[in-house]
Every structure is written in structure tokens, then in C-alpha cells.
């Protein structure tokens, strides 16, 4: 435990009491997603010194926080970990339950190959050592949504160990700097999901839905190498992207495919780690950082006031914005682990150890999976920077939204516009519209081709950028029309006829002698008024730069 502490200590990460407010403010700032805080370059690193000096002279001591995470990712597979039942979100209650899932006596687990491959892929992507032999164990506890009275997991010898996850935070405003941090991964284990208990307070009954019971989970254990909510949230976000790139989990937090529990403790730097609490069920990205920061704040507050931290399980109350002890988890559980006798050891092979003549259906070759790993988010970002010369923070932004990168690449393919121009349009205008209407990329009324065509019109100066925005709005509203159609219908194309433009300028100058006089008197704003009048006269179809040029020529003495 001393090692990780030293590490972040060297990095200069410290929690100071007052910093906590900053931390939780972050949580609020990051309400939409972590993108926004990154783009703005607001990180706790940047803010800490400021806040330190600002507040609280109460405790002279500095506090350091230690955060570790246990992340459960539902494996994306057609069937469950040990049974043939289908896996599907939001199916009618108890419609996806096999005899095994309901733990009918006499049923036995049969390991799903796809889930094992997903675990190996994830392990490789997270730089883990893949154990060629791993074991399954039973973890016992009585709960209504755990029909067997035990969960099959990998307690003693998990499938993957000793990995690492690199995540980046952008620091400072323009130009921002990308800092890469690493959190060690203790292990990845395969295990069963439980069913769901739905408490009906009104009729004081509990309803059980076993659709989720037995779905394959990857439990990813992150070492306590993080020191605040934002770091944890960023690491989780990176893991989410990796899982999605691999296709091993849909990792949608809202649908419960990614669930995070955090272990949080605080201590004075240089002293032993404090008593930790476990914050459970951080089921939305929105509240992850907030919950951790508020728990850190609470612990410091307790200690500052001479109280003790209990080793307990707490849950985050998003309405109150703080963590609360979980009543039903009180009392120490002894899970009475024991080897799962119905599953032989899980053996994996590499090309070297593959038994000759082995049936490919019966064995899993780690090397084969490694060779077929898709591009990981960090590699994609690097490629985008290299290939299109875009800014690092833009590479993050492009990956942060599901489908956005694909959209971007499809636009790039069909347009002559500069990649930087495309990036700007995709990240500012397109994404802005999506956010405003709370839509996903694949729900966008504007197709990549339409945006590409629009950018082409802009690129060859057929329309002004103001007109381009107008066309975009039109595209968003009325599906089915092409940008060219909109441009011609609304007569938005730029006037290419230099003579006509000259005439228009002349007419405006003649009609507004007072303004012309103002310009000549040296009023710098007067020319803009003239430009506006010409634009109005040309129904905004003239390029303001060209108008300005003509006017200046005509007005020059």
C-alpha cells in the first residue's frame, strides 16, 4: 500500500481540505460528460493551488485522498456466462431465465466461450498478464436476487492480473497540455451478475427479476492510484472507451452495463493510509466524481472534528449530494469462499503451448486474440493527431461521443475541406446541436454526406460561413433536402458577379451619404454599417470580405 501513495505523492497530488470544494464543483461542471471539463481545461491540478490559498486555515495539515475502484462491466454476449439464456436489456421481466439461472437443483454451469474471449481481449488491452490457468469459486451470501445462494466468481486465481490503464487529463487553457496518468490494474475476473430486486414500498413487497441473473461480468479492480473524483471518473471513461472499442461490453452506465464501486480513504501525507469506506452503486458518470469527492470531503470533515471513519459501505444519495451508510449491508459478511466443483480449471493456450491437433473449438489461443485486437482509443487519438493535424484535446472530444469519430471520418472522406475545418464544424456546430436536443450521434437528422457537401460549398466559397450555418439549421429541420437544394431554394449562394456587387455597393453608398460621411470622418464602426447594408441589399448572399474590399477601395481618397 505504501508504493501507490509514494507514487502520486511524487506527482505532487495532494488534497488540501479546501480543495474539496473545488473537487465537487468539478462534479457539477462535468454534469453533461467529462468532455466539457476537459475542453475547458479545468482540472483539479490546475485549481488546487488557487483554492488552497483561498480557504480554510483551520487544519494546518494537508490531506491526501486515496481512491481505488472496482468496476463491473457486463460482457456483451448473446448468452449468459454459464447458461444458454439470451442476454438482452429491457426484456420483459423473467423472460430470459434458464433452469440454471433460476438455480433449479441439479443444473450445472457450462462456461460460455465468448465471455472467456472477451475477458482475454480486455486483459490484453489493459496490459494484463493472462493466466493460462484460472479457477472459479463460489461466494456465498443470502439475497433474494441470488437464487443459488452463491455467486460464481474468480477469487483465488483470476483470468488476468497486473495490468495498467493510462488516462489523460488536459491541463490549462489555450494552449492546453495533455498529462497522461496511469492506474494499475490488480486483476480482471469473470463472474456472474445477480438478478434485480425491485422494492415496492406501497405494497411492501419485493419483486425479483432474474433476467440479469447469470449474465457475464468482468470485474476490473483498479489499485488505489487515484486521488480525486475527477481522476477516477476519467479513468472510468477511458476504460469505457476501451471496452466499447473492443466490443467486450457496451459499457452503458445508464443501462447498468458498467457499474462502479469506489474505495475511498484520506490520510496525512507521510502517514499510513486511513480507514477506507466503500461507496457503492455509482451508476452514472454524472455522479461518479461527485460522490467520490463528497466522500473525501466527508471523511476529512469527520477527522477534522475528531471523529473516526468506519470501515463501512455507503451509497451516494444524488438528491442530497452526499454519501449515506447502507443499512442492509451492515454487519461483516463472511462469504465462505470455496472452489466451484462443477467447473474444471479454465485453461488457455498460446501458440507455443497449444497442444498439437487440438480442436480449435475446444481451446482458446491468447496469441490469436492478441493479433486481432482492434485499434484502442489511445492509438486512435494518436492517429487522428498524426493524420489530420488536429489538436490533442479535439482527438479526445471526437472519441468521447459514441459514433462521433465515425461521423467525423465519414465527413472527411467526402469533403475537400480542411480537417481542421471539419473538426471545428463537427465539435462545435454539429455536437452543439446534438447536445441541445439531447440526441445521440446516430439520431442526428444531418448525415455525414450532407455535412460534407455543405463544407464543400463553403470550401469553394459558394456560400458564406453565415449562410453555411443557416443551411445547417435548415438541414437539421428538414430532412431529405441536400445542402445545394437549400442553398438554391433560399438563394444563399454568394454573389460571384463582381460587377453586380460593385453596383450594389455604389447604390448603398449613394443612398446613405451620412454614413459615408461618417466613414470619411474616421468613425471605424461606420464601415460595418455599410457592409451590413450591402449584405441586406444582396440578401446576405455577398461575401462580407469582398464587400469590405470594394467599399474601402471606393471610399479611399
Amino acid at each position, binding site marked *: 500500500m505504501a508504493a501507490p501513495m509514494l507514487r502520486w505523492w511524487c506527482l505532487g497530488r495532494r488534497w488540501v481540505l479546501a480543495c474539496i470544494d473545488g473537487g465537487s464543483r468539478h462534479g457539477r461542471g462535468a454534469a453533461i460528460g467529462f468532455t466539457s471539463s476537459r475542453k475547458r481545461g479545468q482540472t483539479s491540478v490546475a485549481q488546487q493551488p488557487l483554492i488552497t490559498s483561498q480557504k480554510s486555515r483551520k487544519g494546518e495539515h494537508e490531506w491526501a485522498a486515496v481512491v481505488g475502484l472496482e468496476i463491473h462491466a457486463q460482457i456483451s454476449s448473446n448468452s449468459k456466462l454459464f447458461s444458454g439464456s439470451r442476454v438482452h436489456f429491457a426484456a420483459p421481466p423473467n423472460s430470459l431465465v434458464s433452469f440454471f439461472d433460476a438455480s433449479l437443483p441439479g443444473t450445472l454451469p*457450462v462456461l460460455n466461450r465468448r465471455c472467456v474471449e472477451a475477458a482475454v481481449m480486455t486483459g490484453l488491452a489493459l496490459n494484463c498478464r493472462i493466466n493460462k490457468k484460472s479457477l472459479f469459486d463460489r461466494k456465498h451470501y443470502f439475497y433474494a436476487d441470488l*437464487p443459488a445462494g452463491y455467486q460464481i466468481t474468480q477469487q483465488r486465481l483470476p483470468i488476468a492480473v497486473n495490468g495498467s490503464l493510462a488516462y489523460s487529463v488536459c491541463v490549462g487553457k489555450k494552449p492546453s497540455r495533455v498529462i497522461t496518468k496511469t492506474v494499475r490494474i490488480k486483476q480482471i475476473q469473470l463472474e456472474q451478475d445477480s438478478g434485480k430486486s425491485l422494492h415496492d414500498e406501497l405494497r411492501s*413487497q419485493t*419483486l425479483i427479476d432474474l433476467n440479469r441473473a447469470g449474465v457475464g461480468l468482468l470485474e476490473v479492480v483498479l489499485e488505489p492510484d487515484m486521488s480525486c473524483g475527477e481522476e477516477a471518473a476519467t479513468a472510468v471513461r477511458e476504460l469505457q472507451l476501451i471496452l466499447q472499442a473492443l466490443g467486450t461490453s457496451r459499457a452503458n452506465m445508464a443501462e447498468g452495463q458498467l457499474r462502479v464501486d469506489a474505495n475511498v480513504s484520506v490520510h496525512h501525507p507521510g502517514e499510513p493510509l486511513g480507514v477506507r469506506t466503500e461507496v457503492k452503486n455509482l451508476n452514472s458518470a454524472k455522479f461518479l466524481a461527485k460522490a467520490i469527492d463528497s466522500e473525501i470531503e466527508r471523511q476529512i470533515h469527520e477527522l477534522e472534528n475528531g471523529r473516526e471513519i468506519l470501515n463501512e459501505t455507503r451509497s451516494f444519495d444524488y438528491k442530497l449530494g452526499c454519501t449515506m451508510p447502507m443499512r442492509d449491508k451492515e454487519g461483516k459478511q463472511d462469504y*465462505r*469462499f470455496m472452489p466451484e*466443483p462443477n467447473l474444471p480449471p479454465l485453461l488457455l493456450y498460446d501458440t507455443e503451448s497449444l497442444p498439437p491437433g487440438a480442436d480449435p473449438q475446444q481451446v482458446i489461443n491468447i496469441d490469436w486474440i492478441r493479433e486481432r485486437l482492434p485499434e484502442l482509443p489511445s492509438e486512435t487519438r494518436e492517429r487522428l493527431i498524426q493524420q489530420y493535424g488536429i489538436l490533442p484535446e479535439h482527438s479526445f472530444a471526437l472519441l468521447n461521443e459514441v459514433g462521433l469519430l465515425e461521423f467525423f471520418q465519414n465527413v472527411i472522406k467526402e469533403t475537400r475541406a480542411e480537417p481542421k475545418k471539419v473538426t471545428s464544424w463537427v465539435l462545435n456546430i454539429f455536437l452543439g446541436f446534438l447536445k441541445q436536443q439531447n440526441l445521440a450521434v446516430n439520431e442526428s437528422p444531418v448525415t455525414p454526406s450532407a455535412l460534407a457537401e455543405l463544407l464543400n460549398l463553403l470550401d469553394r466559397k459558394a456560400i458564406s460561413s453565415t449562410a453555411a450555418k443557416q443551411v445547417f439549421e435548415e438541414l437539421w429541420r428538414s430532412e431529405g433536402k441536400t445542402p445545394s437544394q437549400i442553398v438554391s431554394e433560399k438563394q444563399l449562394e454568394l454573389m460571384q458577379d463582381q460587377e453586380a456587387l460593385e453596383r450594389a455597393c455604389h447604390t448603398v453608398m449613394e443612398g446613405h451619404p451620412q454614413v459615408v460621411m461618417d466613414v470619411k470622418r474616421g468613425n471605424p464602426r461606420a464601415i460595418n454599417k455599410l457592409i451590413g447594408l450591402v449584405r441586406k441589399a444582396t440578401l446576405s448572399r455577398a461575401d462580407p470580405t469582398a464587400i469590405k474590399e470594394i467599399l474601402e477601395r471606393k471610399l479611399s481618397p
Partner: protein
Amino acid sequence: MLGRTLREVSAALKQGQITPTELCQKCLSLIKKTKFLNAYITVSEEVALKQAEESEKRYKKGRSLGDLDGIPIAVKDNFSTSGIETTCASNMLKGYVPPYNATVVQKLLDQGAVLMGKTNLDEFAMGSGSTDGAFGPVKNPWSYSKQYREKRKQKPHGEKEDSDWLITGGSSGGSAAAVAAFTCFAALGSDTGGSTRNPAAHCGVVGFKPSYGLVSRHGLIPLVNSMDVPGILTRCVDDAAIVLGMLAGHDPKDSTTIQDPVKPFTLPTLTDVSKLCIGIPKEYLAPELSGEVRSFWSKAANLFESEGAKVIEVSLPHTSYSIVCYHVLCTSEVASNMARFDGLEYVLGDKEEEPLRTVSQNVNIGQKCHRCDINVSTEAMYAATRREGFNDVVRGRILAGNFFLLKENYENYFIKAQKVRRLIANDFVKVFNSGVDVLLTPTTLRGAAPYLEFIKEDNRTRSAEDDIFTQAVNMAGLPAVSVPVALSNLGLPIGLQFIGRAFCDQQLLKIAKWFEKQVQFPVIQLQELMDDGSSISEIEKLASVSLKH
């Protein structure tokens, strides 16, 4: 006809000497007559008659499915049977009707076998007497045999005959009694520490425990997953081999079964035993071993030796630790396996007051187990359900098992027991590697005990005592078979056990078959069970039945 072996009656069916329906009806009527034996918990009469009818149609069309087509069989009530109540002789599972067949049951049905019913056992197969089930004890058919009655008449307190009936041994006592009383031609038992071999020895039938992993456990309600094996009870070794041929092989639903395909086989007749090496483990000469059994054991060894086989004394030094080691491993797995019986799942119906039930009733699985009426809290309900549903033996084992699995005890008990288990298994490996083909041992310490005598000790004591020769085999996953040898002075059957190398089940049965032929174990004479004289004479004729192939 009922007295014949499976192979003989199969030949009779093929030759049209009897139809499957006639055979089924004969068995059903005998089951009724022998109801007092309490061998069956459920008699599936309707299903059986329907299956027999279908079999008959096949025979008429000349499309018999094979040796098992139309053969009445029985299945221990801890194997799941689709649509037929499966109780494990426990209140916890009373009324539970599984929606699926155990793989072994399905395989038998696929071969055309006719299921007569589900046989009695100790609750959840925990016991060695078939005396500790929710449906009462099983009575040993030999209690009513001419052989035993004649010996007992010489005794002074002969008048109170009925209170003096004998236990069958267990836990597959119902299956052993069903086969011994001619109500079926083969029965499935289960064997975790000797539960097939022990009652087989007491009931004078063949009890075979296959190698662990040779036969699927899917659908067998577990006692100890790492030791459970479906067992086969028949009237001769050949029949056991026929049934094994139908059951053995990989099951995609049981990951612990062997991958290699196993083909059905006919057991060859061994004529020469001179190349065999028979091992006699010296540790099996227990002080409690009765003089009679000991003498049969040594006679058997002499028999092999006289026929030219090499008979040597061998050592299995860790044998004495087997029972205590088994106690830890068994109770631990029991604690785990019984956790699912919490009274919660799949309570169907419209009981609004139910504290917990499933959201929808889409899943037509039915209530899995007993539930109490308490609804103070979920925990209180768990506790009361389990107190009401399990007997003392089961609760005792759950309690012990949970103790051994506690974090502070795990290393000292469970891990140690696993290590000892490895040593015990290695003992066998060493002996077999030294050139021994099979081991010859007693199956039980003595003949079947009278019920009143047996229940003087508790279940735990009896299990520890009775599993002494059979239990180590389960630790090592080896095949073993108990073959009836002779009758004791009291006129009761005595069995001897052969233990083979892992997955050399056929070789083991081949030697057992040779031995069986030499000893000519007498047929049980059940005059008092049979009303009409014809059955008796049929049974007595048995020795003269010959095969016409």
C-alpha cells in the same frame, strides 16, 4: 419373468415371449404388493404404461431401440425427472416437479426404458441406512426372504417378526430394494461415499460406481459435486455393463465429463485370470470387520490365486484419514449446495400476502422448494423455511460445512482436507502404477442390520462406520463395483468390492463378471411377498433360464 436379468428379459421381449406392456403391468403389480418395503416414493404408473405402450408399438414394427427398449427401470428420487415429482426424500422439495430430465434419465428414456417410479433414499442422500428420509425408512426385501426367515426361526424371539426387519443400507436403499424385489430390472442410484455399493451389498445385488466424469451428473441433485457419480444397480454384472454403455460419455451440460466419446459395448467373458494382479489393501482389514465378511474376502482372494492370478498385499497408507477428510469436504459442499433452498424462488399463484415473489409469471418453473408461512423479514423467513424443510442430519451438515468454510477456518479445515484427499488419491495411483489391475476389498463391515439395531447410533456415526471401505474410492474418482458373494450365517447377502483404475470401468466389470460366475450367489426367495404360486415357481426356475441368441 420378473426374476430374470435385464439381458434375459430383453431377449424375451425381442423373441416376443412377453410384451413390454405385460412386463410393465407385472412390475406395477409387484410394486403394489411390495409397497410395505417403501422402496418407491413415487410410482409413475401412468407414465410407465404409456412408455410401455409406445415400446410395444416399436416392437410390433420391428423397430426396437435396443437392449433397454421396454425394460422397467427405477430412478433414485434425487435425479430430476420431467413432470414427475422429485423430492430427495426431503420436505424441502415435496411437491417439486422438475421441468427437465437428468441426462442419465433422458438417455435411458431415449433407449426405450420404462420408468416405474422414483425410489426412496436418505434425505438428500445423506446417510447409509435409507432410514433418514421424509417418507420413512426402506425395508430390505431379504427381511422377508425364505433364506433369512428360516435362519431366524431358530432364534428364540421369532414371533415379533415384523418389528425385526432389516435396513437396506443407503443412501440408494430404495433402488437396491426395487431391484432385489424384482420390481424393476435396473435402477439408478447415486454414489458419493458408497451410497450405491453399500445398499447393493446389503440387498444382494450388483452396485456399480463408475469413474468420476464418465457419466453425466446433470440433473442429479448434488450432495458433493466433486464426488457424486450416478450409480447403477442391477441383478448381474452384465446388466450393469449394458446400462453403463447407454449412460457413459461426454455431456455438454456437465463440464466435468470426459471429452472422448464412449461407445456402447458388450462385456467380454473373461476365461483366464492368470495374467491378473489382484491387490489386497492391508488397511482395509479393519478391527470392526465381521469374521464372516473377512472369511469371504479371503476365500475370494484364494479363488483368484487358485485360478493363477497374482494376489498381493498392498498398502493405501492414508485410508484412515479418509472418513474425517470426507466429513470436511462433504459438509462444506453440502452447505454450499443447500444454500439455494431458501423458500424464495418461483412461488407462483396469486398470494398477495407473499413477501417476495417474482415479477412476472412468465417462467413456468414452479415453486422450487418449501417455504414457511413467516413473513416478518426475509432473514426470518429463510431461517424458518430451512428449519422446517431440512431434517436434523441435513441441518447438522450445513452447520458444520459453513463452519469449515469460515475465513478463519478455511485453511485449517478445507484446504487441509483437500490436501489429504490428494494423498488418498495418490495412494491408489501408486498401487495401480505398481502393476495391480484391481483391488479386492469388502463392501461393508457385516450384513444388513435390523432397523431397531441400526437406529441406536446416529446418522453421523453410522455413515462414518459404513462408508469405511467405499468412501476413499470417491475421493479418488475411481470405478468400483460391489458384487454379492454369498449369504451369511443369518442368511443375509454379503458383498465384496472391486476397485479399478480410473476410466478402466470395462476392465473392472470384466473381472467382476468372472468372479460373479464363480461364486454363484443364490437367488432371493420371496415366497411371502408373492400371492400367486406362479411367481414363486418362476423365481425358482431362474437358475434354469437360458439365453437363446
